[in-house]
């Protein structure tokens, strides 16, 4: 690109790149959600070794920066001979990152269901699987909505880190346009506004769910 000003074309490119940010967020939440759900269940399992393994996983993921997960999956695997396209490396890293946090959030929600609910359902001769399915998880899910949506906001913003390995999402698109226009204030203001447009409704939703949860008491 030769030197240009920040105009409609450039803004269009930002909006286009926002799609990648959103796609990456969806991948992270779906993949991380599935993995995190399994880890959350393992974290509350009967068998102690299973619980310890799950706790270790959570500790490790939460204990290293997302950036390192990203480098490890991108450069590490390519050193080992696997060449991952940036979208795969970015998607895998964000999935792992999200799984560690969602597992911990959901573990808390499962454990927030009073132990009397376990005892009552156990006394009605339910299997552990039935207890989870019909009694514990429906209640845990309700509690989990506000913090889960709140975490989704973090994921949206943290996808910007994948620009480091050359994945062109919203933040990276901003850098590229800035390099071509040298109008950093305008460019990054536009980028910030776009992030805000996605995150603000989510934050509001999280807050709304939280208020509903308190008002609607137990159901």
């Amino acid at each position: 690109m030769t030197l240009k000003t920040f105009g409609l074309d450039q803004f269009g490119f930002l909006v286009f790149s926002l799609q990648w940010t959103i796609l990456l967020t969806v991948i992270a939440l779906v993949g991380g959600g599935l993995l995190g759900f399994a880890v959350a269940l393992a974290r509350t399992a009967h068998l102690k070794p299973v619980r310890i393994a799950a706790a270790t996983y959570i500790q490790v993921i939460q204990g290293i920066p997302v950036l390192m997960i990203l480098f490890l999956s991108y450069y590490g695997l390519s050193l080992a001979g696997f060449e991952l396209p940036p979208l795969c490396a970015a998607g895998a890293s964000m999935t792992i990152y999200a799984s560690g946090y969602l597992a911990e959030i959901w573990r808390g929600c499962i454990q927030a269901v009073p132990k009397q609910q376990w005892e009552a359902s156990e006394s009605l001769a339910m299997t552990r699987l039935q207890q989870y399915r019909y009694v514990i998880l429906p209640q845990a899910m309700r509690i989990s909505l506000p913090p889960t949506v709140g975490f989704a906001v973090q994921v949206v913003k943290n996808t910007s880190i994948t620009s480091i390995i050359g994945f062109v999402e919203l933040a990276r698109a901003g850098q590229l346009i800035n390099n071509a226009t040298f109008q950093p204030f305008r460019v990054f203001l536009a980028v910030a506004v776009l992030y805000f447009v996605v995150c603000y409704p989510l934050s509001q939703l999280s807050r709304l769910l939280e208020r509903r949860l308190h008002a609607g008491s137990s159901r």
Partner: protein
Amino acid sequence: MPEVVVENVHKSFGALEVLKGVSLSVGRGEVFALIGRSGSGKSTLLRCMNGLEKINAGRIEIAGHALGGDARALRKLRTDVGIVFQSYNLFPHLTVGENIMLAPRIVKDVAKAKARDVAREVLQLVGLSEKFDSYPDQLSGGQQQRVAIARSLAMRPKVMLFDEVTSALDPELTEEVLTVMENLARDGMTMILVTHEMGFARRVATQTIFMHKGKIWEQGPSAALFADPQTPELRQFVKSDVK
């Protein structure tokens, strides 16, 4: 054949021995009241009877099942033994009807229409037919406790255990729950109940057991036991309750 046999049961939590060799035998249709100071091991004894707590030594047989088998055997036992707790423990995300139908549906594979009939029947038994579609948080404490009793009854248990089911309730609400239990007793249900309601124990229980320091301190037909306590501990306990 007694419906409940407890033989020399010991139970410890860590170093604390809570049950120190408890034995009792309850015939079919009998009603046993467990009384005693808080901490004397009444709840623990009751919870051992449906396997919520594992015993360290001794033997328990209830409704024709021996405790101590595998998970499947324990579930089988629990389909025949209902328990109701002080804190109701209804499932807050389900309606009254769903609370009652859930276990028969998924544990005993009862067809939906049949489960609904059973739910209506047991709700009528506890006088709450009109609450089928209400949620637990729309009910008073006494109503919730009656639903909890109905939920247990829907499994068609042979033995019912009650752990201080009226202790969280105001006096007026206590009455409505006690009435339900008295009707059950009259219909021939085998019942063991931990209670602070001495009048109720005296009137409804065929036998009353006074527990003290993890042991059965004194036991006898309710009327005789209350009229003429043999040990100073029970005398003291009965006296402190009257005032």
